[in-house]
């Protein structure tokens, strides 16, 4: 019995000593990458599948981009950088792109990576089953493979956006021999991915975690540094916060943590936060007006609604400050590329309510005895409570201009069917990511060719503007950046004037991480890129 106190004492002494070293450790030593260790990241919610080549849900790529790689990655200025493609060359007419591939790359099943895998991934998988395929790869006619390390893309028309859409997240390169002769979604690797990335898939315990192990034969020498990544699924937001605060989890991207908790977590000395790594999302919350409805068919009414909303209030109280007011259909993240313009009709003017009420009067909808002009329904976004809060605010805001808003909150399937198949809605409050190029995630909400009944998150507003159609169509093919910017500026101006929707707030995602985890956010793709250089301080 007398032996017990001694080890307890020494353990405490040891802890104290290690704490002291941690405090005294010079910064230079802390910055030397150390291999080994297991990183735990929180992914929320748990993905339904890991078939990132066929499903574009945002909770899949944090896991699959560790396993699958794309041809390219992007630097902080969103300039294409080599990944599986060692180099690339776009011909002068923009119709031929030649990729030279990395040599000595092997898939996790041991197969060698060649141009045949690239051709199969694009022509047989991405073009056929990737939901973004019809847009991004519309002009891609063929992938030629003159030798094992060269892939030549033949395009029908120039497609400047294509070079912005080749990341591990956009078009993952799969192993041809695994997929050949099978239906892509039924392929056994749909939930057991085999790629060329720094981590290989090990196990998926449903409801618990996905385990990824270091791929020993990874083609980048000395990488990855981590031995293992565990992606944990924790359904309850408070528990996710607690997991980070206790150091049980190291990383949570895409605002997996409640916005209300972020400020408090930022004050926690063991945690850090960053808003970097979301450069290609351009997430914006919007309203969609159903222009088939008589009230909303009038431009004055739509503009009046835009004037009635205090966007700064939404940013401050619904996003807890993590965002900024939106001014139009293009996010301000497109400022660096030059496509964004602020030169549009501004709704956030001091006398906005006065203008809104006058527009309503002019449209021929005077206030009734109870101050109400007419009533509309708002379909509440079913993807979380934040949207119900926003809906409750909108009800108050529109009340100020005499529009009585009735909220309707239904389950996801019913909501989507009502808004995108039955068109039985007045106002909808969805949320979009524009992607790295407007062609990827902006065009489909506004061009008349994207009025496709039954397809979710396309033009359900019945917005048909020949001017905007033409401008966007030209912008799709324009190779000259200045001319392309001019086309987008004109399109934005026209769309804000027409107000087929209201653009509310640009959402700023926040990543919360344990300060022991280093080098996790290495580019604009953030959590949609492999943690090949990430390492843990121990």
């Amino acid at each position, binding site marked *: 019995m007398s032996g017990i106190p001694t080890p307890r004492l020494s353990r405490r002494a040891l802890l104290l000593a290690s704490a002291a070293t941690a405090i005294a450790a010079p910064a230079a030593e802390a910055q030397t990458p150390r291999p080994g260790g297991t990183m735990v990241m929180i992914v929320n919610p748990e993905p339904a599948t890991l078939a990132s080549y066929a499903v574009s849900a945002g909770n899949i790529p944090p896991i699959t981009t560790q396993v699958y790689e794309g041809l390219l990655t992007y630097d902080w200025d969103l300039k294409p950088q080599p990944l599986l493609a060692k180099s690339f060359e776009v011909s002068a007419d923009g119709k031929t792109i030649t990729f030279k591939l990395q040599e000595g790359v092997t898939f996790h099943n041991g197969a060698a990576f060649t141009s045949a895998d690239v051709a199969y991934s694009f022509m047989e998988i991405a073009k056929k089953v990737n939901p973004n395929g019809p847009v991004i790869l519309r002009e891609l006619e063929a992938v030629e493979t003159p030798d094992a390390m060269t892939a030549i893309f033949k395009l029908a028309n120039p497609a400047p956006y294509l070079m912005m859409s080749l990341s591990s997240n956009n078009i993952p390169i799969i192993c041809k021999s695994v997929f050949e002769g099978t239906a892509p979604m039924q392929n056994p690797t749909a939930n057991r991915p085999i790629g060329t990335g720094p981590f290989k898939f090990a196990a998926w315990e449903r409801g618990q975690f996905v385990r990824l192990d270091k791929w020993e034969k990874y083609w980048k020498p000395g990488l990855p540094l981590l031995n293992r990544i565990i992606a944990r699924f924790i359904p309850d*937001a*408070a528990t996710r916060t607690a997991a980070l605060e206790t150091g049980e989890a190291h990383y949570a991207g895409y605002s997996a943590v*409640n*916005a*209300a*908790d972020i*400020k*408090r977590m930022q004050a926690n000395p063991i945690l850090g936060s960053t808003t970097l790594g979301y450069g290609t999302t351009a997430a914006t919350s919007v309203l969609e007006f159903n222009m088939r409805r008589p009230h909303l068919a009038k431009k004055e009414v739509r503009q009046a609604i835009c004037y009635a909303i205090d966007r700064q209030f939404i940013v*401050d*109280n*619904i996003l807890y400050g993590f965002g900024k007011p939106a001014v139009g259909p293009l996010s301000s993240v497109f400022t660096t590329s030059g496509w964004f313009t602020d030169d549009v009709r501004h709704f956030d003017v001091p006398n906005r309510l006065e203008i809104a009420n006058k527009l309503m009067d002019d449209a021929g909808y005077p206030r009734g005895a109870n101050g109400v002009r007419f009533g509309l329904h708002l379909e*509440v976004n079913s993807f979380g*409570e934040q949207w*119900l*809060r926003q*809906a*409750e*605010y909108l*009800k*108050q805001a529109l009340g100020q201009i005499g529009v009585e808003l*009735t*909220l*309707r*909150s*239904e*389950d996801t399937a*019913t909501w989507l069917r009502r808004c995108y198949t039955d068109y039985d809605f007045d106002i909808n409050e969805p949320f979009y990511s524009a992607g790295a190029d407007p062609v990827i995630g902006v065009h489909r909400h506004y061009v008349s060719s994207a009025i496709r009944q039954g397809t979710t998150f396309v033009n359900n507003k019945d917005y048909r503007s020949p001017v905007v159609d033409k401008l966007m169509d030209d912008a799709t093919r324009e190779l000259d950046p200045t001319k392309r910017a001019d086309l987008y500026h004109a399109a934005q101006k026209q769309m804000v004037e027409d107000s087929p929707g209201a653009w509310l707030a640009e959402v700023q995602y926040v990543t919360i991480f344990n300060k022991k985890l280093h080098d996790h956010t290495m580019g604009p793709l953030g959590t949609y890129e492999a943690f090949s250089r990430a390492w843990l301080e121990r």
Partner: protein
Amino acid sequence: MRAAMQRFARNRMAVLGALVIGGVVVLTVTAPLLYPAGAFTLAGPPLQPPGARFLLGTDALGRDVAAGVVQGARTSLLIGLSAALSAVLFGSLIGALAGYYRGAVDIVLMRLTEFFQTIPAFLLAMLLVVIMSPSVLSVIIAISAVSWPGIARLVRGEFVALGGREFVLASIGLGASGPRIIFRHLLPNCVSSIIAIGSLLVASAILLESGLAFLGLGDPNVMSWGLLISAGRVTLRSAWWVCTFPGIAILLTVLSINLIGDGLNEALNPRLRER
């Protein structure tokens, strides 16, 4: 009846419960006067702690929590009472038919009742609300639909027990019709049990409604305690008041109704006390 009132008044806890519920009813009635602007109005700066201007503080959007609690009382009582009442009416009818006619009618109705009893009440209520799309009416229907089986079984049991009594046999002998026997002779004899169980049903209906609203299945256009709690949950660690006060309101109301129910049970069925 008078004796029953006296017995109820002697039960101090039940009187306390009745006082609390009386207070809630007064608040409900005076709500439009106290907070004429309604509970959804953005009354002031967000997340203000309780103080002089906002008695119970404000929530994340700057809405007055006190206004929400008062307006929520109305929703809770409205839904609790209507759901319990419709469950009692429907349950009594089913139970009476099964208990009086017995035989095939009894077998069919009781299997139906058991079918509803075996499905978890809350899950069934959720499903019904989702199918009918959330509104005050659909919530009332869903709660009644999961609450009636208990009443039906109770009433059937009472009917079976009373069925062989002399006064019933005499009525049959005198040629009284089935409905007359059920409504004039049998039902009045089990009304005390129905009232006692029915009052407890109000409490469980309020709890069910709060649970549904908490999960976002309440009517989004109507303020309710569950909605307040679910909205305040995200700020629980920085603004405790947003979900604490509606939580206390639910606790007090449900507890009081239960106390009243117990009091009624003892007052109306005095023999229970002797057991």
